[in-house]
């Protein structure tokens, strides 16, 4: 396990270098004048852009600029985001909790229902549940999340008016910004309960349901398939037959003996899913106008808010890289073949 994990950690600086170089290289596609304009606070300065370019070192060789940029990055100084109308680092802090909350409300149902449905499909192979789960997985596999999201928006907002877009209704939003409401975690549903405000909890859930449902169904399809094939493989093994031959009750065989070993690929996939979701909610957030980090990132990209989109990419990339590393370590920790090998 030591060697495996060590190799993963050794890769980390390389990945960090790769990500920063890639994003920095992209910044070079914008002319020095345009980048200099980002530092301008007074219209008069526009007349002397060449001074600004010199002052901020934008005429230096590329590797010097890269070094300077890394230093700024290390200090969390990511510049002013026009789309968020605040410093980029503050914008990330402001938008991230909403995305994290949404991610949790996608992740938990996906894993619980996905693993349950996958197990049922494997245990009742070639029966109704199995066919249903396969049909479900196939029909959602090619479904782009944005097409699916639009359909849900039309049905659940346009037609039934159950799940409105946004993050809170107006009254609830005003109340959460009032001094009576304490933000402990910045996760609205949790804060609402901690404040004893049931109606805000319900309001927040209603707003989160649309984007959450979009991604729950799309992401679950894969987990069901993996759980099914993993369970089928384990159920074929001798020790399961031994368990049954000993006369153990079927639920004990399935839930205690078989599923435990089948969980290894499922846990790996789930941790990757969680990390992937954090960045992948961009489309769902945009469709449901859910003010998370993904919607802001997409907006920043469309409006060419350079500091905003750079900060978004660096933040999500960093989170993903660290999350993937955690998934690898977790995988090594639970799989005895790697732990002991």
């Amino acid at each position: 396990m030591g060697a495996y994990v060590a190799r993963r950690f050794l890769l980390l600086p390389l990945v960090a270098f790769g990500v920063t170089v890639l994003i920095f290289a992209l910044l070079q596609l914008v002319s020095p004048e345009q980048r200099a304009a980002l530092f301008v606070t007074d219209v008069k300065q526009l007349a002397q852009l060449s001074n600004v370019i010199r002052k901020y070192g934008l005429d230096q060789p590329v590797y010097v600029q890269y070094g300077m940029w890394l230093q700024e990055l290390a200090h969390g100084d990511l510049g002013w985001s026009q789309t968020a109308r605040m410093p980029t680092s503050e914008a990330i802090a402001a938008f991230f909790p909403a995305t994290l909350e949404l991610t949790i409300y996608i992740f938990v149902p996906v894993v619980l229902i996905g693993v349950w449905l996958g197990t049922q499909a494997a245990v009742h192979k070639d029966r109704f549940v199995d066919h249903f789960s396969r049909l479900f997985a196939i029909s959602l596999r090619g479904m782009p999340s944005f097409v699916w999201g639009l359909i849900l928006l039309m049905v659940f907002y346009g037609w039934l008016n159950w799940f409105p877009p946004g993050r809170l209704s107006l009254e609830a939003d005003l109340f959460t910004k009032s001094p009576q409401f304490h933000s402990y975690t910045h996760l609205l549903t949790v804060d609402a309960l901690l404040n004893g405000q049931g109606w805000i909890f319900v309001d927040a859930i209603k707003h989160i349901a649309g984007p959450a449902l979009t991604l729950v169904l799309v992401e679950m399809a894969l987990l069901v398939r993996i759980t099914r094939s993993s369970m089928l493989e384990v159920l074929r093994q001798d020790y399961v037959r031994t368990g049954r031959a000993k006369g153990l009750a079927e639920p004990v065989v399935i839930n205690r003996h078989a599923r435990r070993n089948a969980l290894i690929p499922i846990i790996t996939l789930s941790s990757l899913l969680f990390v992937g979701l954090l960045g992948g909610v961009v489309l769902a957030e945009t469709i449901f106008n859910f003010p998370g980090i993904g919607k802001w990132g997409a907006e920043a990209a469309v409006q060419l808010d350079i500091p905003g989109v750079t900060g978004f990419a660096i933040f999500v990339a960093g989170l993903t890289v660290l999350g993937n590393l955690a998934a690898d370590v977790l995988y090594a920790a639970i799989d005895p073949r790697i732990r002991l090998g």
Partner: protein
Amino acid sequence: MTDLRQGASGAVLAASLAARPEVGGEGYWQIAWRRFKKHRVAIVGASVILLFMATAVFAPFLTRYEFDQIDLYRRKAVPSFSHPLGTDELGHDVFTRLLYAGRISLTVGFTAALTAAVLGTLVGGISGFYGRWLDNVLMRVTDVMFSIPALPVLIVLARYMGGSVLGIVLVLSVFAWMGTARLVRGDMLRLRTQDFADAARALGASDARILFRHLVPNALAPVLVAGTLTVGGAILSEAGLSFLGIGIQPPTPSWGNMLQNAQDFIWTTPWLAVWPGAMIFLTVLSFNFLGDGLRDALDPRLKV
């Protein structure tokens, strides 16, 4: 030389059919075709793809309108005889735009997948063939590229290089070659030690000849499968980026930007969103099915 190459495909055939009963006289591709035909969903997928390709290629003959021809007197018209799928908010004929958008989407998908396949085969082939430090360097680069989260970087990339078909293709290829590289490298490690490779070397063939004439052709099956799935993935990514407004820019139609456009009128003319949505869904699904069928036909043990 021809004898050797037959020997090469024979070796793979024997390897892939080791557990099977005697199959008389058929070549590798004939066997693959026979297996592929049994995969009904894959046949349906292939037919849908061929149909969409044909409608995209022959678009000018299938419609009386230009894709950028506006008609302000017939805006957001419901489907009728003259406009089979209706018109959008500028009076564009939606059917025409769907056909021309298919050209863009399929071009992006195929070109990106082809570029990624060539790049992946090159990297994987060289990596597995030469081994040692070169293998180490190339595989670490592959690892790093795998670890870089595609979406945020894609968004930035597409913003600066997007708008054009070529830009989008480049952007998508950059993040699509790694899987192929790993597959090909694995095959190379196995193939390079086999007798036919030694025989070619003994005959004085150059490294490049051994690699590209003898080894790579034997590793093409997984590349084909991965490539097919990449086409679907690339079409989906293009549609997603265009939907966000950072992919293909109007007036050039793409299914993604048609959908984005339709989003603004979703309450008044929902059918405008239905057509491009359905096209994306059907195309991506068809490529997935085709990929599954090819995988089962070419190598049932393969998992891409």
